[in-house]
């Protein structure tokens, strides 16, 4: 759905995006992470034809950036960093204008659909200048989707929203994903990226890595399983450590933590051994590193 080759953007001497090689699949939520100044917004602007690349190529939905910009604009929706709504106009008027510009056939119907969906229908006649930041953000999301685009670019969609509104937006993103849309999500909210994204790209001028959140964790930290026992000692740990598939083993009080390549395959044997050794197992779970750990490790490794 989105493909870039050697995509580069320079502003004077400063390289904002360097040799970006990216493939975003149809229907996936692709998280684009990176620190401030990493080139995320610049990438989005290039892919939505708001700015031209300095070198390299990009295609969106089969249309090449720089050659079929109008076609790209027709099939993409964008939520910019700031909502950028017309404050002196009503919510309905704002959306009506953009629906017409996006060549929507049923302007009234689409405007009503999205205003209702994000709970703004009752405020449709109010001036946007009187809206809260969260309401403006929701309205801007409506605007990005009015023309039912195949690809949606969301730049910090839950930034500045209260928890309730942020959850509503996240649910909304999942729903539009269910409709088969490709979503390119720039966010600093790593928990949000973890929950929503099929794959994640970490960027810092150049792309550091792309993978699923699970694989990124596994690559960096491996997979770990934690056993909560009624009582644990070092002798028990030594017996388990002797198993050939145990990569790493440690005891923290009455908890045993094991590093495994394939917990689904090895956990049954591990449980059997512990039971045979007389251990009382209270809980078993996978020890997950947060995406924040992964992100900080990846970004930090480039400094």
């Amino acid at each position, binding site marked *: 759905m989105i493909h870039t080759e050697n995509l580069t953007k320079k502003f004077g001497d400063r390289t904002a995006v360097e040799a970006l090689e990216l493939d975003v699949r149809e229907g996936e939520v692709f998280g684009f992470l990176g620190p401030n100044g990493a080139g995320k917004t610049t990438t989005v602007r290039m892919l939505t034809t*708001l700015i031209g690349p300095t070198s390299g190529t990009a295609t969106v939905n089969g249309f090449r950036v720089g050659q079929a910009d109008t076609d790209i604009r027709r099939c993409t929706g964008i939520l910019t960093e700031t909502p950028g709504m017309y404050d002196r106009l009503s919510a309905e008027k704002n959306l009506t204008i953009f629906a017409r510009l996006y060549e929507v056939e049923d302007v009234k119907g689409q405007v009503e659909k999205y205003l209702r969906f994000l709970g703004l229908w009752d405020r449709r006649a109010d001036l946007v200048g009187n809206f809260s930041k969260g309401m403006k953000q929701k309205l801007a999301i409506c605007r990005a989707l009015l023309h039912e685009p195949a690809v949606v670019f969301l730049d910090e969609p839950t930034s500045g929203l209260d928890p309730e509104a942020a959850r509503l937006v996240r649910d909304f993103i999942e729903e539009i994903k269910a409709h088969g849309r490709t979503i390119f999500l720039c966010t600093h909210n790593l928990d949000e990226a973890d929950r929503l994204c099929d794959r994640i790209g970490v960027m810092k001028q150049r792309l550091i890595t792309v993978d699923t959140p699970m694989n990124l964790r596994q690559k960096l930290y491996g997979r770990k399983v934690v056993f909560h026992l009624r009582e644990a000692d070092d002798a028990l740990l030594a017996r388990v450590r002797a198993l050939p598939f145990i990569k790493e083993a440690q005891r923290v009080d009455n908890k045993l933590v094991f590093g495994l390549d394939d917990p689904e395959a090895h956990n049954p044997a591990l449980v059997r051994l512990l039971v045979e050794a007389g251990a009382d197992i209270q809980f078993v779970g996978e020890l997950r590193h947060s995406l924040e750990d992964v992100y900080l490790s990846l970004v930090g490794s480039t400094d």
Partner: protein
Amino acid sequence: MPKIWTIIDKEWAEVFKNRLVLFTVIFMPILFTALPLIMVAIGSSQADMGDATDLPASYLEMCGDLTGSACFTLMMVNQFLLLFMMMPLIIPVTIAAYSIVGEKTTRCLEPLLATPITTAELLIGKSLAALIPGVLATWLSFGVFAVVAYMLVQSPELLRRILDPMWITAIGLVGPLLALAGINVTLMVSSRVSDPRTAEQVSALLILPLLGIFFAQIIGVIAVNVQLMQLAAVVMVAIDAGLVYLGVRAFQREVTEWANQRMGESANEQIGE
């Protein structure tokens, strides 16, 4: 074409809620209509001024067999009718100045440019949105002026001179053409600056040639006539065509180029990261 109308609709809905713009659109026509009418009223209340030989030679030629007071009235009206040519320039420039800069400062331009609108459609929409109110206000004011002037003077001959082809050409054609030039310059300037007042001030320089004609006429250096107006119309058509072409070419869709104009922001903020 539908997108152009959408832009016009948006501009009018947005711009006419700006008090300064609204004030300019309403106040300017009232002022510029009242001034020549006061001149007419003063002229018509004067006793006969004899053969009016004190008037500049160019006017004596223009007056023909008008009485002295009618000739004086005509001279004064001629001078102030130039204001009707400035009106369609001043009003649209005010609107256009807020048009692009306003969208830049409120960050509305980026979502707008992400739609499938072409640069030409966007600029034509903005130009027409600025031009139409100014031209309509001017024509309406001129109509009001002509009716009230006739009621004051009751001289068909003087009215005929006021409504002669020169002024019809000037106000009906040259004024709107000047306005179009002003708008295009304003749009070009406003896409490069971050403050509407800067765009307005730079574009206001366009009024200087008109003011030059105004004062040259007052001191009798030139008498504006129909040939001069026709020549002005031809020149303005050429200038407008060039400015429209330049305007579309010079308009930067690259929002970062505009962002770079923003004052007091760090390099990172300039590229939106």
